Structures are given as C-alpha cells and as structure tokens.
C-alpha cells in the first residue's frame, strides 16, 4: 500500500462521508480495510486516513466479522492510543537497578542492534543450558497481538521452553469455560444462537453486551434477538451490563451459578422429565455403562466402552453398528460387574440438588429456579425441527451460557460443566436456536478446500477438536510430575495456570528440588502487575527475575516496575497481522453468519523506531540460528488448516512437530528464506484461498468471504461424535494426578475430581465471616479491555460520565446499613489484609451481599497520566495459590470477601510517586 504524500495528490474526489468545515486542503482521503486491535474481538474495520492522519474508525459494513458497520467505543478510541504522546518510540534500557511496584525505571534510549544483541546473547546461553529457563508470556494488548498462532508464544515454544505464562488469564477469562467449551463444543467459547434462540440463560456472562471475545458480532446479533423478543434470563450479582439488558435479572451470590444449573437439571430430569432422549443416546456418553469403580465398563478385546442394547438385550461396544436401541436407564451386569448407563447415574445423582438447597446457597428463590427450569424446558421444543437452506435440522431454541463471572471460582470446571449439562439434556448444542461453539467445523474455501477444520471422534468416540490452542481438550493427556514453572502438566484438564505467580509456588518447587530457575522473561503486551491477582505476589516473583524484556506500545506498571528492556511495538493501525484470531473456533461469527478471513494491515506507517514484534522475533531467531525452525513451524501451521498435516494447536503443535509427516507439509517458506511479514501473509493467503486472493486482493477487500453451509453452522448431527456428560476421564485422571502431586507436595481438593458433575462451594464463600461479610467481585466494563484502555482520553471522559465505571458499587440498602453514602471514599479489606480503595456509588441493581468493581482500573504508572489514579484496582484484593484455584481447571478464585469502611485517602497509591490521592 502506497501512502500518498502532499506532493502526490490523487485526483480531486468530492469529500463525502466526513464532516468538514470550510474548504481545507485534502491531499489524502482513504478508507483502509483492516481489523481492530482493541480487544480479542478483532472486528473488521475501515480506518479513515486524511492527509496522513487516521481521523476515524468505522466498522466494516460488508462482512459478518463484527457489527457490520458499527464498532464499539474502544475501537474508535484506538486512534488515541496510536497518537498517545506517551508511547514507546525507541528501544529503552533500564538504568535504575532497583525493581519494584513504584520504581522509576530511568529509561535510557538504546539502538535496536544494541537491544537485540543483548537479548540474543542471553537467549543463546539459556538455549544451550536449558531452554526452560526462559519464561515467555503475555496477553494481546493493542499492537501486541494477537497474531496468536504466529507470534504470541510461538517464538518461545520453538526456542524450546514450556514456560508459557499468560498474564491474568483465568482471572479475566475462563479456564473452566475453555476446558468445557473444548470438551462439549470443540471450541474456545460458546454463544447462544441469537438468530433462532427464544430463551437464553446467562450466568455471569456479558455475551452481546460487553464481552471481549466475539464482541462485535455478538452485540449485533444479541440486539436482533432482544428486538425480536428473545427471553433473556441473566443470573448475575449485578444488574449492569448483562443484567441490564436482561428480560429478567436474577441476583445471585458469586460462585453459586453451578448449583442453580444443577437444580434446574434436577427439575428437568426428575420432576418435569422432559429431555432429548435421542440426543442423550446418540450424542453423549449417557448410554455408556459405568462400573462400580466409576469408570467405563470396557470391552475386554477392544478396550472400547460398552453400552447396553435394549433391543438385543445385551452389552455391545459403543459404536457397534448393530445396536438397535441404546439403554440409558437400568442396571445391568457386564463382564461380571454390576453397571449402569451413565445417564441413570446422572439422573439419580442430581436429585440432591433441590431448588430449596440451591436457594440456601445462591439466594435465588426456589420458586424462581423452578419456574425458569419449566420455562426453559417448554421453550426447548424437544423433537421440533427447522428447515434452513433446504436442510432439515433439530430446532432447540434454548441456550445457557456462562463465562468468567459464573465460572471464575474454585468450582470453575464443575460449574461450567453443570451449565453445559443443562444444554446437553435438551440437545441444544450446535443445532439451530441452541448453544453454539464458535465455529468448529469449516469445510474450507470453495476454490481450494483449504482452511478446513473438521471435528472428529477419537478416544472412546468423544468429540475432538480439529484444531485448538495451547492444550487439547480431548483426548486428555497424561498427568506428569510438574517440571515447568506453570506446573500445568500435573492436571492436563487445566487451560491456564496461575503459577508461578503465586504465593505457594516456591514451596512446591523447593520440594521438587528446584530443577532450574527462570533467568529471563520475554513478555508481549500484557500488564503482568496490574492485571494479575495480587500485585504484591506478582511483584515479588517478577522482581526476582534477572532479565525481563517486554514488547509494548504504552508504558504500564509492569514495564516501569520490572522490565530491563522495552521494545517499542507497532499499534494495530500500523501493523500487519495475518491471524487476528486463532482459527475459526476462536472468535469467528456463529450460526449462518458468513465465513470471513480478514487481515490487518498498516493504515499509517509506524513512526519513530517502532517495529512489528513478529519481525523483531525473526531478527532474534536469526541471531540464534533459529529462523529455519520458525519457518518450518509456520509451514506446518499453515498446512494444518486444510487437512494434510492436521495438528492440535499452535504451541501444542510445535511440541508435536516430530509426529507430523514432513511429506504432508507444504513448503510455503524455505528453511533459509528471510521474508517479510507482508510476504508471508501473501503466501499464506494464496495457499489458503487461491492465487487471486493474495495480499493485494485482501488489502483492497479487507477479507476473503464465502458463504457458510447449514452443515457447518449446525454441525452436531453431521459428525458422529459424543460428549462426556459423565466425565469419566476425570475419574481416570484422579489417581495419577494425586500420585504426581504428592511428589511436589501439592494438595488439591480431590473431591472435585469426580465424574458426576457436581456443585462445590467456592472458596470465596468459605471465607465469609461476621467481620468480612461481603463478597467483592470485578466484572468487565463495556468501555475497557485489559489495562491500556484507561489511558485513552475519550474512554476516560465517558468513563467519568458513567455512574459505575470508576466507582465501587454497593446495594443502596446495604450501604445505608453500613452508614455509607454515595461519594464516600471507602476501603475494601480482605481477610488476608489486602486493601484497595475507591469512591462508593450505590445502586439498587446489586446483590446486597456484594461489592463490585468494574474493569481493571486504578493505574499508578508514571507513563500513563490519563489513567493514573482513576478507578479502583480490584486485583489487589486477590490471593494467588492453590487454595484459591479450581483443582480441575486451575481457574483463579476471582472474588474475595471483604469488609468495607470509610477511609481518608487512597492508601494503595502511597509511594506511587504521582499526585497524592
């Protein structure tokens, strides 16, 4: 793309589509199609460049990857991040040897060569000794992402380290939900099929109102659904985003969503007895026979799980073509043991979850649970079908979804699976109207058949994702004695780990004999101090690492307090990005929305010495003689979407490169080639979508689009796969995990390793006492993402115009009871003595036993003057250890118990060095 200059004026075009006063000279007036980098959503946008300056962002109206012409405020405000005078423009080196929360780094400008030589020197040494001594990590901030499968984490993985730490993940997103969505939908997350759904239940989720993932198209589709009259029941402690757009807001105590879901399952199975028998028989492991040990009864010859054929009255392997009718009830004797179909066990097991019991813990009235269960079961229309584009499909217009709020507790995995069970028993999974995963099934571009991913059945006939990220939800890997700093290999069901940024990590590492130490960290984009649980615990960990390199566009608490070298990254409006998402299962539009493959491209050229971090990583790879390995990884990755070299996911696939037949890998990049990002993008696009759809085409059109088939949108009955509503694998895993954990001295809540989906009270509830009598939680604000959005003046302005964004909220009556009123400066203190402060705003729409803080505010970085001191940093209150993590998914406990009292100043800013607050 050629940027016009003043002396190379294009022919006179009338100025339309912009507000102009008078007759200013306009020598450059271009709308460039690209993607937004404001959040994970990666909506397609058009950026308007006038006289070399980006003046406006519009949503892209011509494809489905976003709000079709609309955009959110964060996306618009990205202009201000681009032009922020505080941006990092040159490589910087820390001259203050001291590191700490409030330390001034005393940056000194250095050259790129100086920076990269220094980094490469250290990396070389580490790679020779033990690559695991490098910790790499990050979450996509603006400009630092995502490029998920190409940059984000890949460099470190090729380098050979398994220490990949995603800052604040599990805190902001959902370890339990990624595990569960992977297991049940072969996808990263789930969304109601807004187009056809008539009754949606949201548990601690802001789908369509503020969520980051798939935010754009969700907002659009959810609005259509509300306008159409979809019933939307939102269980949430606060009536702000999700609750605020509900047709019925049901206040609930944090961490008890799973119990309400279980109570509804109980009512549906045991009181109403309306469930989708065919779905349970054909699409779940409901018919699989479970022995007295809680595990499958397996065929002695083939080791396949057995089912009972009610027609022939005998046991058969689950996929025996002769089965006449799968029994889902009763007691049988097979292989000399008494056994039951797992569905029978589930149905009996859930009887304990009465709505009355649920009311006690959750405060949701039993009558409400009963009514909603009844309404939901009625709305499910079990047996109904619908015709879409000539295909007759099951029609189940009900959907339950949960995200971070509902499952961000120590019962994360079980609570999320409980919600999935609700969808499963009525067959509302990946069928019209039901709960849809982000597209897990794509047959490929019509011209080439590439960009093809199909879910399939493997071990025990269970659903297996065609591609995934990080870990494979199925088949479950074996448990191992921890050998990484993340220790996640101990529990392979976990998506993300809070370790090593925990207060108990050293205890376990000591017990393991401290096999090695982290000598260097490379962090992309994330704010590892403000956006992770407990800045004290985090500060202690990062402070000990001898050398830290970060890529970022804007100063933040982590860069200032702990980084030794900062490399200036490009802003999304200055950069190429081939993979805005991770693959179709991550963030692509759902249902019959079209297939779109958009790319990001620079709208303006990067100024100063900012560089695209991927090309920087390649420079480093050159210095380490690692470029050929990187190129090979890319070849494998690109080839995998298309079926030949089918691999699990980006980082995972690097680790399994040896398993891949090199003959199936297309050489898009020669081992010795040193190509630019643009060149790689061009080759990948041509490979996927044909020669005519290279970079030139996509630069002009923004994306490659093709229609989706009903079979792809609603794939569930087109693929012969089942889902584990009975989580036998967890029972199977338990013994190994226990054995391996013992070696590290790790104690987990072993009870949660149960195959029968159950409710376990969250840790936060256990810490409630007379003194610490309120639950405190944080939730996503529609105006903010991560921490960097706080530094954008427009967002700051409207945040101040919002009653909740910068304030701590409490129920009006509860505040009154505590002698507090609007505008009071209050302190929240946890039982562990952690304190944070802020301004109180009371509201009716909040559970009386809760205190809430939105977004991730309370900045103290010196280089972020707009964000400084605004709002309240919730994360300060959190603990970080195994006690406060879900044993199965390792999700963090994202709520804390607190006591609330008035205070005279903002103590968490004492020593921050900025204005006294």
């Amino acid at each position, binding site marked *: 793309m050629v940027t016009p200059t003043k002396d190379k004026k294009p022919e006179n075009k009338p100025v339309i589509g912009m507000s102009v006063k008078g007759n200013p000279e306009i020598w450059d007036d271009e709308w460039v199609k690209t993607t937004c980098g404001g959040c994970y959503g990666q909506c397609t946008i058009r950026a308007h460049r006038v006289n070399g300056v980006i003046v406006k962002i519009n949503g892209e109206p011509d494809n489905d990857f976003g709000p079709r012409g609309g955009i959110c405020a964060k996306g618009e405000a990205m202009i201000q991040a681009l032009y922020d005078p505080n941006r990092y423009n040159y490589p910087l080196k820390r001259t203050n040897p001291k590191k700490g929360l409030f330390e001034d780094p005393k940056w000194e400008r250095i050259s790129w060569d100086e920076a990269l030589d220094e980094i490469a020197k250290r990396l070389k040494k580490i790679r020779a000794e033990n690559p695991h001594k490098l910790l790499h990590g990050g979450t996509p901030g603006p400009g630092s992402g995502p490029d998920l499968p190409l940059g984000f984490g890949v460099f470190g993985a090729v380098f050979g380290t398994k220490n990949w730490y995603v800052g604040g993940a599990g805190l902001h997103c959902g370890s339990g939900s990624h595990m569960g969505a992977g297991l049940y939908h072969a996808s990263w997350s789930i969304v109601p099929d807004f187009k056809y759904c008539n009754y949606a239940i949201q548990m601690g989720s802001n789908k369509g109102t503020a969520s980051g993932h798939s935010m754009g198209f969700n907002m659009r589709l959810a609005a259509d659904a509300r306008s159409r009259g979809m019933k939307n029941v939102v269980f949430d402690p606060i009536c702000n985003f999700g609750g605020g757009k509900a047709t019925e807001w049901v206040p609930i105590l944090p961490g008890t969503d799973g119990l309400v879901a279980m109570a509804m399952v109980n009512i549906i199975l045991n009181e109403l007895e309306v469930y989708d028998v065919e779905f349970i028989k054909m699409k779940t492991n409901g018919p699989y026979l479970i022995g007295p040990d809680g595990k499958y009864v397996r065929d002695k010859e083939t080791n396949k799980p057995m089912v009972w054929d009610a027609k022939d009255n005998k046991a058969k392997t689950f996929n025996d073509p002769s089965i006449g009718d799968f029994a889902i009830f009763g007691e049988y004797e097979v292989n000399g043991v008494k056994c039951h179909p797992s569905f029978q066990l589930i149905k009996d097991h859930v009887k304990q979850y009465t709505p009355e019991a649920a009311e006690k813990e959750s405060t949701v009235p039993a009558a409400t649970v009963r009514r909603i269960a009844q309404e939901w079961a009625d709305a499910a229309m079990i047996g109904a079908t619908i015709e879409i584009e000539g295909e007759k499909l099951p029609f189940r217009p009900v959907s339950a979804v949960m995200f971070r709020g509902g499952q961000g507790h120590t019962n994360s995995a079980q609570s999320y699976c409980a919600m999935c069970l609700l969808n499963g028993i009525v067959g509302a999974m990946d069928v019209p109207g039901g709960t849809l995963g982000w597209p897990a099934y794509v047959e490929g571009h019509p011209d080439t058949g590439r960009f093809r991913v199909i879910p399939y059945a493997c071990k025990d006939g269970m659903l297996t994702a065609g591609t995934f990220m990080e870990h494979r939800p199925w088949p479950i890997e074996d448990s191992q004695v921890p050998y990484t700093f993340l220790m996640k290999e101990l529990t392979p069901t976990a998506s993300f780990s809070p370790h090593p940024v925990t207060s108990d990590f050293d205890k376990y590492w000591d017990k393991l004999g401290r096999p090695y130490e982290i000598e260097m960290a490379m962090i992309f984009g994330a704010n590892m101090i403000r956006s992770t649980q407990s800045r004290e615990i985090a500060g202690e960990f990062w402070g000990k690492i001898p050398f830290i390199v970060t890529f970022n566009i804007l100063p933040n608490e982590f860069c200032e307090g702990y980084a030794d070298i900062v490399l200036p990254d490009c802003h999304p409006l200055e950069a190429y990005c081939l993979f805005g998402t991770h693959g179709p299962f991550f963030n692509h539009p759902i249902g019959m929305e079209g297939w779109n493959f958009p790319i990001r491209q620079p709208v303006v050229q990067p100024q100063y010495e900012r560089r695209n971090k991927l090309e920087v990583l390649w420079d480093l790879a050159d210095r380490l003689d690692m470029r050929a390995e990187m190129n090979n990884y890319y070849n494998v990755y690109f080839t995998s979407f298309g079926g030949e070299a089918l691999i699990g996911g980006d980082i995972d696939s690097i680790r399994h490169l040896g398993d891949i037949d090199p003959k199936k890998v297309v050489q898009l990049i020669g081992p010795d080639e040193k190509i630019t990002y643009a060149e790689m993008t061009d080759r990948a696009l041509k490979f996927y979508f044909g020669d005519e759809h290279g970079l030139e085409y996509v630069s002009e059109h923004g994306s490659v689009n093709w229609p989706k088939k009903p079979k792809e949108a609603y794939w569930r009955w087109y693929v012969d796969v089942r889902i584990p509503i009975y989580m036998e694998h967890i029972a199977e895993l338990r013994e190994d995990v226990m054995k391996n954990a013992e070696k590290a001295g790790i104690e987990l809540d072993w009870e949660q390793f149960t195959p029968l989906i159950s409710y376990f009270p969250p840790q936060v509830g256990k810490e409630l006492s007379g003194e610490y009598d309120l639950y405190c939680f944080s939730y996503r604000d529609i105006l903010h993402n991560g921490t960097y959005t706080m530094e954008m003046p427009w967002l700051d302005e409207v945040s*101040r*115009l*919002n*009653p909740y964004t910068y304030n701590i909220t409490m129920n009006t009556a509860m505040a009154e009871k505590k002698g507090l009123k*609007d*505008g009071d400066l209050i302190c929240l203190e946890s039982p562990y003595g952690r304190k944070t402060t802020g301004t109180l705003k009371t509201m*009716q729409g909040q559970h009386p036993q809760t205190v809430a803080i939105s977004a991730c505010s309370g900045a103290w970085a010196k280089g972020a003057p707009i964000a400084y001191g605004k709002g309240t940093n919730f994360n300060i209150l959190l603990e970080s250890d195994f006690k406060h993590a879900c044993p199965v998914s390792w999700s963090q406990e994202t709520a804390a118990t607190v006591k609330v009292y008035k205070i005279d100043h903002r103590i968490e800013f004492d020593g921050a060095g900025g204005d006294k607050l």
Partner: protein
Amino acid sequence: MSQIKPYDFMVKYQQQKDWIDGRGNFIAFAFFLGGISGGLYLAAAYFDSLLGMFVAWLLSLLMGVSYMAHLSHPFRSWRMFMKPGTSWIARGFIFIMLFIGLTTIQLILSQWVPEATGAITVLKVLAGIFAFAQSIYTGFAVSYVSAIKVWNSAIVPILFVTCGLSGGLAILLAITMGGDHAQLVMLENVIRVVLIALAIIIGVYLWNTTYSSTAASDAVKRLIGGSLALLFWIGVFLFGIAIPIIISITSYFAGEASSGLLITAIVSEIIGGLALRFAILKAGMYTPLLPAE
C-alpha cells in the same frame, strides 16, 4: 448542588449553571440593575427628580456593561437586535438601548433646555415606557423558559418589576434625603405599599410554584428549607422585606426616622433585590430526563 457528579447530568435534578456560574453572575447583576434602573426612573419621573433619572440612566448603562461582561463575544453584541420577534434577550437589548437613548435626550433637555416641557414630557413618557419594559423584560426572559419550572411562572415578571420598583424607590429615597420633607413622606408611604406588595407577591409566587410541578416544588423547597435557604431568608426576606418594612413601619409610628435608619433600610433593600435575582436564578432546576429513582 451545582457540583453534581458528571454521571448525574440530567439523570438527577440539576441546577442551571449558565446564568449563575462564573460569568453567569453578571446576568444576575444585569437583571437586578435593569429592575432598579427602571423602577428608579419611573419613580424619579413621577417625583420629578432629575438626579434620580440620571442615576437610573447610569444604572441602565451599568446594566449594559454587566450584560456585555456576560457575553463571550461582546463585540458581536450589535447582532442582538436581530431577533426581537421571538427572543426576550433581543427585546430587552432593544429596550435598554431605547431607554438609554431616550433618557439621554431627556436628561440633556431637562438640564439645559428645561423650557422644552412638551418635548421633555413626551420623552419622559416614552422613556418611562421603556424603563418599565427594561424592568419587566428581565422577568419575561426568565419566565419564558419553560424548561425551568420554577421560572416558568407569570408572576416572575411582576415580581421582578415590583422588586425593581422597591429598589428604585429606595434609591430615590436616598437621593431625596435631606431634601423636600413632604416628598420624603410621600415616598415613604409609597415604599410601604410596594414593600407589602412585594412580600405578598413573593408569597403567592412560592405558593403557586409549589403546586406547578415536582421540579418547581423541589426548587421552592431548596429556597425555603434547602441549600438556598440562607440566601432566601437572610438575603431576600430579611434584607429585602423584613428590615425595610420594620424600619418603614417604625418610622410611620415614630413620625420621623433617623437618616441612619433610612440608609440601613435603603441598603438593606438593595441587597434584598440583588439577593432575589440570585435566589431565583440559583433556584432554576431542570427536570431529569430519566425517571427519578
């Protein structure tokens, strides 16, 4: 109340700021000056006090200055003649200009050509009309604003005129002090009547307004018992009505008041008149756009 939280903008009851905060203060002064200038001219014309009429002319000029000080583009003020058809500010501007113009000629004639009685009388009548107009328009400018319920009352112009008249009379009293005794007594009698009328009008206004709308009754509550109570009871009631009336009634029974007492009454009344404009302007509240909690 003017310090509402940004997120309460038009979500909660909200005081108008544009005609009270910062430069907005000059509007209150201008309205006050317009009122007393008009009142003084009418009284002075009636009692044929050349000095009174001259002071009224000065006060009107001051009103103009105060007005200019309020504008962010005073050099464009000539444009304010453009829309007398619908705008009370435009009308007022014209009234002020005409009043000043007519009074200027009348004063010149009265001072240097006193024999031109015919012309002077005509000018006096014309100037008197615009004196009245200049006084009452300040009330109309306010009462025209239907958005602010406490202002949107037909009583406001009467209130402003009466208040201006009482202030004008007080100034005339000061000018006349030490002069013609009979005139002084007569003036005092008129003042008593006007003061009592003012007290009644204020009472009726508040009473009437209380029942007109929630926003208005809320404003009245703030005036008599809320954040504006001090301004209202001390400024408007004590200075504007109570002290002058007490002194005036005492002097009626005593037959003669000391000049010290009279000066107290005069100053007190002027303070009261100013306080009334501030009180009414500050009481201006907008109705929230969202349903109240």
